[in-house]
């Protein structure tokens, strides 16, 4: 009969209309909680209806591999030996693999000897040109440049805000472990240490010279291979790996993490105020 196809379609529209309310009733106030499984209920494979995330009051947290304008890793302030030091050795690879060529690096020179030192003097990324491809992070041999998760970079003046210099690019190593615990853990496995490659090498050298008298080869505690924890447990319970490794960044307590998060929020607010004004 003419019109049945139409009516069938409209029934479906009606069902879609109802589904969201059914979901609302089914999940009740859990909709407003921020526990892990909730979003999954409403937006995951189990959901029937739709959910509205009230951006910018609420946000969908991005997955670990998400990539946005890169940042440079510097050692945490509380690092015993390398506090505030760049992980970048100014090897130049990221500048070469960058497809739109938006990375500029000035290699540092020792003022006394004039020899190059493994730390960049200046580092610029033009974020207007950056295409967020992630190559710099992927091919950096020192894990010194990483893709950020902070995507709210809009400003009113591109000429003054959109060329990120070293100061603006630098973020502590612990920030990376916060936003991407699983990846940071995998990278640690490849490096064999939570420390920077060079720092680990130096420590090894130091240990070797201290043992110079003795000929027996000692197992090297500083670069011990990965403790037997899965990415899961490491990410979920940082303390577990902390006990395995002693004074690693994982041992820090929650208060400190909170503090850092607060600082990140402040920085963000400041930036917003700057670009807004």
């Amino acid at each position, binding site marked *: 009969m003419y*019109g*049945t*196809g*139409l009516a*069938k*379609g409209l029934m*479906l529209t009606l069902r879609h209309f109802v589904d969201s309310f059914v979901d609302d009733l089914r999940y009740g106030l859990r909709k407003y909680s*921020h526990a*892990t499984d909730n*979003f*999954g209920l409403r*937006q*995951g*494979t*189990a959901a029937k209806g739709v959910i509205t*995330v009230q951006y910018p009051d*609420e*946000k*969908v*947290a*991005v*997955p*670990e*591999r*998400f*990539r946005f304008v890169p940042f440079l890793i510097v050692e945490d302030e509380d690092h015993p030996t390398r506090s505030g030091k760049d992980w970048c050795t*100014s090897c*130049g*690879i990221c*500048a*070469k*693999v*960058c*497809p739109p*060529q938006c*990375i*500029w*690096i*000035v*290699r540092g020179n020792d003022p006394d000897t004039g020899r*190059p030192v493994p730390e960049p003097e*200046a580092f*610029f990324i*033009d974020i207007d040109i950056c295409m967020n*491809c*992630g*190559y710099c992070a*992927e*091919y950096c041999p020192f894990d010194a440049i990483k893709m950020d998760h*902070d995507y709210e970079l809009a400003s009113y003046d591109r*000429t003054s805000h959109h*060329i990120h210099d070293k100061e603006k690019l630098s973020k502590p190593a612990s920030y990376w472990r*916060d*936003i*991407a615990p*699983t990846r940071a853990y995998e990278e640690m496995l490849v490096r064999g240490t939570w420390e920077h490659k060079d720092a680990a090498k130096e420590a090894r050298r130091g240990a070797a010279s201290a043992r110079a008298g003795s000929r027996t080869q000692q197992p090297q505690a500083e670069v011990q291979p990965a403790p037997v924890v899965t*990415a*899961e447990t490491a990410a979920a319970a940082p303390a577990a790996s902390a006990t395995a490794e002693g004074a690693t960044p994982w041992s820090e307590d929650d208060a400190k993490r909170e503090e850092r998060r607060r600082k*990140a*929020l402040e920085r963000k607010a400041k930036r917003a105020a700057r670009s807004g004004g």
Partner: protein
Amino acid sequence: MVSPAIAPDDVVNAVSIEDSIAYLKSKHPDAVTDDEREGYSGVVVQASKLLEVARAIRDDLGFDYLSSATAVDYLGAGDHMEMVYHAYRTSGGGALVFKAQTERENPEIPSLVPVWRGADFQEREAWDLYGIKFPGHPNLRRILMWEGFHGHPMRKDWREAYYEEEQKPFDNRWPGGHVHRSEEKNVFGKNVTYPSDIDLNRLMDTSESEVYASLGLGVDVERILDKDGFETNELVVNMGPHHPSTHGVFRMVLTVDGETVTSLEPVMGYLHRNHEKIGERNTYLHNIPFTDRLDYISSMGNNHGYVLAVEQLMSLGRKYNPPTYRCEAIRVMMVELSRIVNHLWAIGFWLNDIGAFFTPVLYFIQERERILDFFEAVAGSRMMCNYMRFGGLFGDLPERIKSVSNLTNDRIRDYNTMQFLTEMVNERIPRTIDELEQLLTQNEILLERSIGVGVLSADDAINYSAAGPLLRGSGVAYDVRRADPYSIYPELDFDIAVEQDGDMYARYRVRVTELRESVRILKQILPRLEATEGESIWADGKPGAYAPRVPFGEAYGRVENGKGELGYYVVSAGGRGGSSNPWRYHVRAPSFINLTPMGLMSTGYKVADIVGILGSIDIVLGETDR
């Protein structure tokens, strides 16, 4: 309807590529020679005999489908221009590659439009970007640049605005890399050059006849305008470049007689950025994220075609490891998921075009959203995936699709990846497709709007080099995944969707069937992923180099993308011992070539149908204009 297999329909089609070449050489002994350059294949045909040889290729040997026709400038490497053609049989099999050469000054090669209408836009592009003239072409005008543009930008000696260096990586980025903006070094106004004889005022001229004179549609504006006042019933209508129905900045100039379209000319290039020139400045690796920006609805497929082409070249050298089985399985899964995204999108927006405004498309987008979430968790980006690498991938599937909260009020999630995929493939996507059918397939309004409208016959579809659902909707069971298989498609069980009617509804049906076939493929992929759990995605266990040297030669990598056959013609030449930047990087864009029959498909229908016909072709301007 689904066709189980393609059978060669006559003896001629069974002749192998080698025998075909031998036949051509025996028939035209002085015009056809083997291409003996290292790493090249096919034959070189004397330009003066090209038309005859092409006819023999089509009529005697059965290569009825001209997939790609493109130019290469060998400045400094032989100093000649070359047209490269890839012809296929719609019954399946490999390419017959033939080339014609001409000198760089006053290059001229006979047009192949009389043999394959599909060469029309591609030759116009070669004229526009390389300055090769095609005697015999019915309408040889610029197509991507505007009339009056200075020079032919793909020539090796042409330099773009904000030119820095011939090839990346640029020298000044490291170790003394002080930041600069290109526009500071080369301020606006100095970065464009005009021909010496150009009258800039003419470009401002708004006289109607001049505007339409630069188009080839043969509109006699004078005659139409000559009629007095409102009595005329013939009109010229510009749809676009800013028009919601064109899915981007695209313009169609139509002449209508009352409501009936009497001719239509697509006008494009508004989004042209010379992707190919950028590609030739780039290194091989640099190009992968750029391919994402072609058809930005299905970037996984774009990646796939390009890495296939470069892998073909790399396999000519000694140090090459083909991707592992797990890598291939993940690749196929990703491109099938993006095919689903593409078709849901295409159907949804086509429905918008014919009046089912946004309700259906929003239902489809819910599923697309979940697939994009998955891409984001795996590749790092929802649309600009940049996921495939030469011989591998950016990374294996993560164990969990998970996010951590950085800021207050973050909505976080944490699913098991395989479980998510299983639920998507077995439940959600099939359910969405069922709903789609329930919603629309029998909808009387849809049927009346789309049946018998925008008809393209099978012969025309082949001759105009149509591809993808446009070709299959016209009754030609041609799908690269079956006709010239790549990756692990030969071992997968799926059918080619084909419909005989050639109208908008047939193309819609083809897309729905393809959605189901994609789900069928995905169901076969999941156990393969489980079986290869733990296997590396790299043959030698570690990621590929960032600056591979690619052996000399040419390669044409093609895949069946959502919109049709997507091909990459890549030439490695110049330098010594392999190259680090492609000499030629050409994209055979289905969105671009599928527009060739647009005029033919629209003539005789009503103005209101045009929007739907365009939507049923399914173009994306990032790919059309490149």
